[in-house]
């Protein structure tokens, strides 16, 4: 399959004279959850947008944006169903296979009770779950998520991440995910892409106090390991 891996080679993005992403090179291996970490404005969103723009047209990638513009006057169900949009079909009605995927995505993100609500009237966290469900309905082998849990409560944060974990384990799906919460990343991710000032600082399988403090310019302390995983407390 053409989409075994995503090979990002020398991606540079400039806004005017400002270089936001400086020659980013990394190969994303499949069947893994890759987590992008870094301080505000380090080019994380630019990176994932660039990856989508570059590879989405020929490949099997879905995308969850960080924030959605206003004025999406569609019901939650119809918004999720946009994930099944197929340009080659004139009739946009859902096939039974589409319906199954949409229903499953709605259920997975616990949106059943909201499915008739209009997207614009949802709270921030509900909108994020809706957008994640839409990407899941797309049923692609890669999904790129830009801070999918920044407005989620703890329960839904865990729900989303555990869903991604089970999709990786059971269906061999792959994810690139931008996160802010270091401990969520530690708990679920297989590989960490650490960025700062538009540059790739390091790629690690596991994190430590030193690299985190360096990337975020803020001290961290390792907490005693649980189930063999080390967690970090920002000081």
């Amino acid at each position, binding site marked *: 399959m053409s989409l075994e891996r995503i090979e990002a080679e020398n991606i540079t993005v400039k806004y005017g004279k400002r270089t936001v992403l400086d020659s980013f090179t990394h190969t994303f291996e499949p069947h893994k959850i890759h987590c992008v970490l870094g301080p505000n404005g380090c080019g994380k969103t630019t990176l994932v947008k660039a990856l989508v723009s570059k590879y*989405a*047209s020929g490949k099997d990638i879905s995308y969850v944006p960080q924030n959605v513009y*206003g004025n999406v*006057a*569609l019901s939650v*169900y119809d918004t999720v169903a*946009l994930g099944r949009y197929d*340009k080659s079909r004139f009739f946009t009605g859902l096939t039974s296979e589409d319906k199954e995927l949409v229903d499953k995505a709605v259920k997975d993100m616990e949106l059943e009770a909201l499915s008739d609500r209009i997207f614009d009237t949802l709270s921030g966290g509900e909108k994020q779950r809706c957008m994640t469900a839409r990407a899941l309905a*797309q049923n692609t082998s890669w999904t790129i998520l830009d801070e999918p849990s920044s407005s989620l409560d703890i329960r839904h944060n865990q729900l989303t991440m555990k869903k991604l974990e089970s999709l990786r384990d059971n269906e061999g799906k792959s994810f690139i995910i931008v996160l802010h919460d270091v401990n969520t990343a530690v708990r679920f991710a297989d590989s960490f892409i650490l960025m700062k000032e538009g540059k790739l600082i390091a790629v690690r399988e596991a994190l430590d106090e030193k690299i985190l403090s360096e990337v975020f310019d803020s001290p961290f302390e390792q907490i005693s390991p649980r189930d063999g995983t080390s967690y970090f407390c920002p000081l």
Partner: protein
Amino acid sequence: MQKQHNLFWLKLTIAVIATLFAVAASCCLGSSNVTLHEVFKYFSGMKDELPSTVVTIIGRVRVPRVMTAALCGGALASVGCVMQGLFRNPMADPSVLGISSGSALGAAIAIVSGLNIVIIGEGFTGSYIGAIIGAAVTWIMVFMIARSSGEYDTSSTLLAGIAISSIMSAFITVLMTLHMDSMERVYMWMLGTFSSSTVAKMKVLAVVVAVCVPLLIWVSPQIDVLKLGREAALSLGVNQSRALGVTLCLSSVLLAFCVANSGIIGFVGLIIPHIVTFFRVYKARHKLLMCFFVGAFFMVVCDSVAKTIVAPGEMAIGAITSLIGAPYFLWLLAVSRIKAGRKEEKL
């Protein structure tokens, strides 16, 4: 879900029937008396049973005017619906983006410079060419500004549209001042009227609408997809620039023909999509279909008022669309607020 879907077709059927009824009823209105019965006979092919004067009045005067109003109303509402969806802005409207004034300027240049010559039949004249060129120039300007920032930005596009619109309007004013002799003609035409409709003009408009509106309906689901943002749309195979280009191009052609035909009729493109939303029609394709018929219905009603209220004179259609449409719109807005307050949920 299924329930809502079925209700849409019910709503559409009601809109279509209302439009057909409005068209028939409007055929009765005018300086000489024609009964609804005669109109039905005319349309059901029993022309032989009618006196020839009635056939002429209906066929040459009433039908062209009413059909032109219906087609223009439908087209303007559809264009408004598309633009509000594309720019994700409830205030987007063909006149806001300057395309109306652009095509009006083009048509005005053609009228003033005497280029308003007959090209194909009497229905396709120099002012149409002028309007299309004017619309195209404006469209290219808006589109270039929309794209120049890389990722196209809604608010700067709308702002640019407003600026371009005022430039075009200013040029029309300059043009009219320089050509006092044809000022009245240009002015009357710009206010908007269907009084000069002919069979030939109606046919040209019908062809344009019959080509552009189905194409818009075909591409309209992409408007919904674009709301997810450029990257997510791309992952679904929708290229933002291309979708934007195609839909804006089709809309501009429709608009240019409407403007060349009956001048600038504001407000319809802005208000109809909102009215349709009040009836809980949300999906882009459904909304577009609904807008077409509601727009046609609305315009026919407004034109009926325009030709009867100061008979034997004519009221400018733009004044009527605002006088009927705006209060109704405000009423809907108020009602939805009251409802929202009572139910403690926002629509």
